[in-house]
């Protein structure tokens, strides 16, 4: 079997999912703590929260594997959003697992992993409270979630809260380079740059995009990456919004967005996102501009996704830019 065919079979995010804590990049302090826990045992209940694709699930798996080794299969219960985790499951399956006897080396505990815990209902979370306390001598809980505020306060209170920060561009790059090397991928620098830019610190997306680009175009360069990603380039949108004159803006809109085939909705949503963080402008100005973009967005959703609407939006935006400057 050729290498390309093989790589298509297994998604690279899975193929290159780290198996040891030391292979996880970024969040050094937290990972360091996890390593200590893996070594000493006595894992506290914990919540790992952070943006998607930065290694939360991976860390918990690594930790559980390093803690439990061969007993993993019998001593770990993992439930994620695709499992039913209603209040009944918590009261039955989870509680039973917590009560279950399990012969583990001293200092080791059964682990219940609840991935994407922010999607659990408040009722189900409530039902975990006492279970976490009563069986804490034999069972520990690990939660992963994107928004820790979706976890009810009593559960937060029972856990060590570890917050993962967005991966830096260097960290994503490091991992991408490892993978390109292992897969023998041909790439250019601007290709990697584009991957990192579009991923916005999401390792999973970076790896996925890398794989898709390789599958589609074999060479990873900037153009190919943006073809795969298929959304207006935020930098172009930014350039359009900040262009010194309305004519310039419209030229960019026409030539670099509209004629390239991006839909009106894609263009306004990207404009919204870009404007939100357009720190070149003062906040009140940005807010007024967002208002205009929003109005256009609604018109487009009502079915008027024409160039004229977008041009009108640009005209409004440029008056806002002028008015306060």
């Amino acid at each position, binding site marked *: 079997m050729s290498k390309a065919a093989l790589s298509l079979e297994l998604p690279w995010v899975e193929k290159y999912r780290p198996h040891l804590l030391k292979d996880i990049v970024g969040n050094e302090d937290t990972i*360091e*703590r996890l390593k*200590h*826990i893996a070594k000493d*045992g*006595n894992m*506290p*209940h914990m919540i790992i929260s952070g943006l998607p694709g930065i290694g939360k699930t991976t860390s918990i798996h690594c930790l559980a594997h390093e803690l439990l080794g061969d007993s993993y299969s019998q001593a770990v219960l993992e439930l994620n959003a695709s499992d039913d985790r209603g*209040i009944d499951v918590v009261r039955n399956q989870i509680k039973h697992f917590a009560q279950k006897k399990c012969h583990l080396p*001293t*200092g080791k*505990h059964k682990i219940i992993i609840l991935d994407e815990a922010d999607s659990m*209902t408040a*009722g189900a979370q*409530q*039902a*975990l*409270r*006492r279970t976490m*306390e009563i069986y*804490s*001598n034999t069972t520990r809980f690990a939660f992963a979630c994107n*928004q*820790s*505020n979706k976890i009810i*306060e*009593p559960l*937060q*209170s*029972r856990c*060590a*809260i570890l917050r993962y920060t967005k991966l830096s*561009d*260097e960290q994503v*790059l490091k991992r991408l380079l490892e993978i390109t090397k292992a897969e023998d991928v041909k790439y250019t*620098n601007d290709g*990697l*740059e584009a991957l*990192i*830019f579009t991923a916005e610190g999401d390792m999973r997306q970076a790896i996925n995009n890398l794989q898709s680009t390789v599958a589609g175009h074999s060479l990873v360069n*900037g153009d190919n990456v*943006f073809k795969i990603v298929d959304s207006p380039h935020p*930098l172009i949108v930014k350039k359009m919004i900040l262009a010194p004159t309305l004519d310039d803006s419209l030229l960019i809109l026409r030539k670099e967005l509209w004629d*390239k085939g991006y839909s009106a909705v894609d263009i306004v*949503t990207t404009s*919204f996102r870009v404007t*939100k*963080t357009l720190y*070149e402008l*003062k*906040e*009140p100005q940005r*807010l007024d501009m*967002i*208002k205009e973009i*929003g*109005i256009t*967005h*609604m018109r487009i*959703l009502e079915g008027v996704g024409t160039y004229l609407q977008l041009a009108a939006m640009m005209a409004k935006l440029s008056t806002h830019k002028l008015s306060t400057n």
Partner: protein
Amino acid sequence: MVSITDFFVKGNAKGAARKKKNDDGGDTKKTTIDIIDLDDSDLDIAEVKSPVKRESIVIDTPPSVKKQIDKVIKKEEKPPSKVPVKNKSSNASVTAADVLATIPSVDLSEVHIKENVKFDFRAAAISGDSEVSTQGDFPEGQDNCLLGLTVVFTGVLPTMERGAAENIARRYGAKVTKSISGKTSFVVLGDEAGPKKVEKIRQLKVKAINEDGFRKLIAGMPADGGDGDAAEKARLKKQQEEARVLKEANEMAEEAEEKELKIKQARLSGDFVKREDLIREQDKLWTVKYAPTNTNQICGNKSSVNKLKNWLINWEASKASNFKSPGRDGSGIFRAAMLYGPPGIGKTTAAHLIAKDLGYDILEQNASDVRSKSLLNAGVKNALDNMSVVGYFKNKDDVNDVNGKKFVIVMDEVDGMSGGDRGGVGILAQFCRKTSTPLILICNERNQPKMRPFDRVCLDVQFRRPDANSLKARLMTIAVREKFKLDPNVIDKLVQATRGDIRQIINLLSTISKTSKNIDHTNISEISKSWEKNIALKPFDIVHQMLSGRIYSDLGANTFTLNDKIALYFDDFDFTPLMVQENYLSTRPSVLKPNESHLEAVAQAADAISLGDLVERNIRSSEQLWGLLPLHAVLSSVLPSSKVAGQFAGRVNFTGWLGQNSKRNKYYRLLQELQYHTRLSTSSNKISLRLEYMSTFKHRLLDPILKDGSDGIPSVISLMDDYYLTKEDWDYIMEFMVGPESTDLLLKKIPSTVKSGFTRKYNSTTHPVAIYRAGVSTTGSTTTVKPDFEDVVDADDSVPATDDTEDGKDDDLKKDKLIKQKKAPVKRKASSTATKKGAAKKKKA
């Protein structure tokens, strides 16, 4: 496609400093990565800020304090009051007053008071006074140099956030308070100070200095607050405190060792050891390992603990008197007690320890048990009865046996009753009235409508978040026992970050101490930041923050970015828009542009809110355009707030929309009913019935009674019969009237004999009834009218609040309601749901 490298080059120019090259020759020739990030400027800001912050932390490691502690550990016996007060400063007799005197006071007449909204502060700042010297780093002061001083910060300081300034003051040992009183040593005054505060300063003749003066003060004060009585006293108090903490810490440590020893001995001698005890201490969670073992060890909330204890002690006696005599503290009339308070402060612990202390066995049910009505009935009720029987015999057999099996039922996490636990709360409340075994309920949020049925049936025992002082000893013990260093001065920070959650602090310590054996000023900020509880804010807090002017100033917009503001909306995106709409008129804007009037700002805000409404219509339409939610966030909340944000003039009001909306629904429903009834004699639709008939109805139904008393009744009844109106309809019609037509006062004028005569007369005869088939809610027709309708309405009312999938907006819902009610015409059923509805009522409050 645009060449990306172009952008990179452009970006490079801008972010050249941060450009990273990977020059190590390998297979990558050159990688310039981090420049394209749109968030760049954000990062830059962060970088610029951080050194300043760090600086202020470093200033403050107090080695002297640590030394003192070490000393006290060694000479533990020594009564703390005798610890000599050493004066480390060389200039021996400097008092705070001396230093303060050297700093010029602010001329109060020149202070810009907030009311002066039209005043252009920017202009003032340019022409103004002390801009120059305020830039730059904060001076480094002596350790604890503000000890014994009480400081108030008010207004906007020119170069620093007020919070940061307060932290600095605290770090140097000052006490920071919010309001000015006789005890205040000095006030640091900024722009836009509240007029009341300025007045107070004048009145009390408190020294007022500006930010500059504050810097000078810190630079000039000797260590430990110099001389002077206040400083002396504060020093003494501090030392006493520390000594006490350490003493307690050691005591507790000893106790724990003793226990370990006992278990060891027991195991050696082959005695029975509880299974719990067999687990090695180091394999337990710290929260278990360091759980209080007797009630004295529970930190804080002493009076609540005692209240519960007394109640339980007297329980049997109260029972003997059939819960009729309130006793000294009034707890004697309750068969059940309800502990409530935030998580992790010892509620469960207290309940268990007290029960154990008093020789009770515990039967616990918690949120992990199904507690539906039927199961509770089957399980607990049997338990209650059985237990009482057992207890009865036991007590008879050996009255003196303290260990006789007495039971307490602990219902933990009552607010965790949900979904599957239908009717559980109601039945539990019933148990509270009847139980023959002490019943302790525990919950977090006592004020939830769900908890309403427990009002007045159980003894309320509130647990509050403990303050730092009550935790110090306990946390220091843990530190001593776990062999890491914990600076007592940082405990405040921990308490702040976790909002007083002891369990969280213990968890935090257990995790942090894995890698860092030293927790003090150098790392506390970082720690407490990442452990800050991230809980969804309540609507009140959200709108308070959303409408505060601070976050819209140029400085504030950098630290609290637009994304943060939008995130605020997402904390509760049902209520935030409503709350903003309710409160946007009650601010005193601090964000007005030059030459802009308050009214203009309000107009712009209102415009944005109305646009937001349009967006919302789209979002909740059949198309479900949830992608518009961020836009809604901006239009409905952030944008209007940005126009009028400022100081709140009054208090934050809860949204009136819910009440108004449910009122509207109620009247709509009543109107429909009236229309069905009168349809045989009228030919109007609902609207014209309201507009054209109603006021005439009112006159003809009310005036005769008002004028002629009982004699007017027959004519009224005959009119009612003509239009197929029931007696209830008569009441509704009166309710419909508003403004000058309002009937409230008129109805009060009718003597009660006439009123009851009217009812009697009406009931004594038969009346024509319009029979209709279309669905209508008629719950009210058999029971007393008023309360019942309130219930129906309020049940509606609660829907938007409880229902996460929010289509609380109405018409469908109303239909549902009607359908449901049609299905349940039986009176009994209606009353059984009454408790639930009653519960819903509170939501409004």
